[in-house]
């Protein structure tokens, strides 16, 4: 409401077409979507493990999964730097073996967003899996389905609404990600400057520009969430 009230409506069309705005928006949507895909690929199996198996240390894993929820994102960014940085534990190896460096790249943005947003997906999907009747998997097994087939053809379709809801939450969280991104990936226009970063930068120079950017981010996320809710997750969220 405050945003709408203070919006510089007269100069809005001109400001919207400034190249920096569109670049930041495109980058935000791209990285949030990629981060959601990464989270789906890693998070759904992780959720299955948490919901369906018992092994020593499961409680610890579950706690670790939720750590990014309570950790200040900036701290998460620092942790990512320590691991994936040029001198980091994995970063050094990635650099030496493949010539890949993550910090201060678009890929780094995706990693930072996935790190912060994945718990939303994992927790939602694990909850859906726990709510789904595990005996359907047993029935599938007696029909000759291995674990993977049973998961793909029976369990996943049964929890599809939960996965969709988790993905939406994850995407929304990734879209708004700020702290881990700026720490781990920096603030380079066109490469790592997502909308929240652009808003922060604009705030220091031009309040009206910051308001415009915020409005755009708000409009896009509300539109997408409403559209997805109608199509995918009615009755879940």
């Amino acid at each position: 409401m405050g945003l709408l009230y203070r919006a510089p409506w007269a100069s809005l069309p001109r400001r919207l077409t400034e190249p920096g705005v569109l670049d930041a928006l495109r980058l935000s949507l791209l990285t949030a979507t990629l981060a959601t895909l990464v989270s789906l690929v890693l998070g759904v199996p992780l959720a299955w493990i948490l919901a369906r198996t018992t092994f020593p240390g499961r409680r610890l894993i579950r706690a670790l999964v939720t750590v990014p929820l309570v950790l200040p994102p900036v701290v998460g960014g620092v942790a990512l730097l320590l691991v994936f940085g040029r001198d980091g534990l994995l970063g050094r190896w990635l650099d030496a073996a493949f010539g890949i460096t993550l910090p201060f790249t678009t890929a780094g943005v995706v990693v930072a967003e996935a790190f912060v947003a994945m718990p939303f997906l994992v927790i939602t999907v694990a909850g859906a899996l726990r709510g789904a009747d595990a005996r359907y998997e047993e029935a599938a097994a007696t029909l000759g389905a291995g674990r993977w087939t049973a998961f793909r053809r029976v369990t996943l379709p049964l929890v599809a609404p939960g996965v969709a809801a988790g993905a939406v939450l994850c995407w929304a969280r990734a879209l708004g990600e700020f702290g881990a991104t700026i720490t781990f990936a920096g603030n380079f226009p066109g490469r790592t400057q997502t909308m929240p970063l652009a808003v922060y930068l604009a705030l220091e120079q031009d309040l009206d520009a910051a308001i415009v950017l915020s409005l755009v981010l708000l409009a896009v996320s509300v539109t997408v969430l409403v559209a997805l809710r109608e199509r995918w997750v009615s009755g879940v969220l």
Partner: protein
Amino acid sequence: MSLAARLVVRRAGFTLDIELAAADGEVVALLGPNGAGKTTALRAMAGLIALDDGWIDLTGRRLDDPATGAFTAPEHRRIGVVFQDYLLFPHLSALENVAFGPRCRHVPRAEARRRATDWLERVGLAEHQRKRPRELSGGQAQRVALARALATDPQLLLLDEPLAALDARTRLDTRAHLRRHLAAHPGPTMLVTHDPLDAMMLADRLVIIEDGRIVQTGDAAAITTRPRTDYVARLVGLNLHRGHSDGTSVTVADGFTLTTATAQQGPVFVAFPPSAVAIFPEPPAGSPRNRWPAVIETVSRQGDNLRLELRGPITVAADVTPAAAVQLELEPGATVWAVLKANEAISYPA
């Protein structure tokens, strides 16, 4: 000998330990009260839980043997299971549910669908193949579950309370239908139920388990005439007493003796139907041998008659007509004379 198994499963406070065998084409019912271990036995055979001891042999292949560490996962066992609540996949149509098994065994899609169509026709559901499970009635869902299990061409068919979820009327039709399909199944069938009527109508042989152990086996005739535990006696509606026989005279309680139609020596069971017990308000004239005073504990309806539970030197159930009950003023607490017709009481070795 197609299925042979000794199933031992240990859980906190409960041990299942039974030996089972079933020939090709034979239908064996596992009958027992809730918590007896029937479903545990079925799950062990299906491979959904591992044995703690014993072994399972199916058509000459050892599926589970804790002694050697051999264990075949359920997806490699070729055992069809019809679950109690069917567990049809809710997101798949009836046809896709039935085609699921063949698809998992790498049958090409078109062939799998053709087989599924074929099976749905056989169970009389050709026109329902596109329906989702929630659009099917209970009886139809049961048939789809049966078709789904049979479409995998199983070496052993397992059914867990196949009729328990159905109302009384659907149950009759479905039972007759199930009977036909079980007769057509070439391999052995193991049926779990707590309903004696289902067991006797569907199975060639009954295995009765209580508390994880087999208490009696036999065909319907043997079980209905010669129960060996109180549970079985109640199931088949007979009075059962344990005693010591000397000829036709059986001592069943402290100094209380019944005369039976059959002569035995040593420990015996005595069984007689409630209808064999006649009730008199006064000590009957003449000298019938089996008579004793008793107090009426409860009166309940039993079909067209009233069933009396009588407390006396032995506890028995007796059936009387409503007219007799009114005439004799039979109410709980009343003292009556019970007379057992000796020619309806049979004894057999314990």
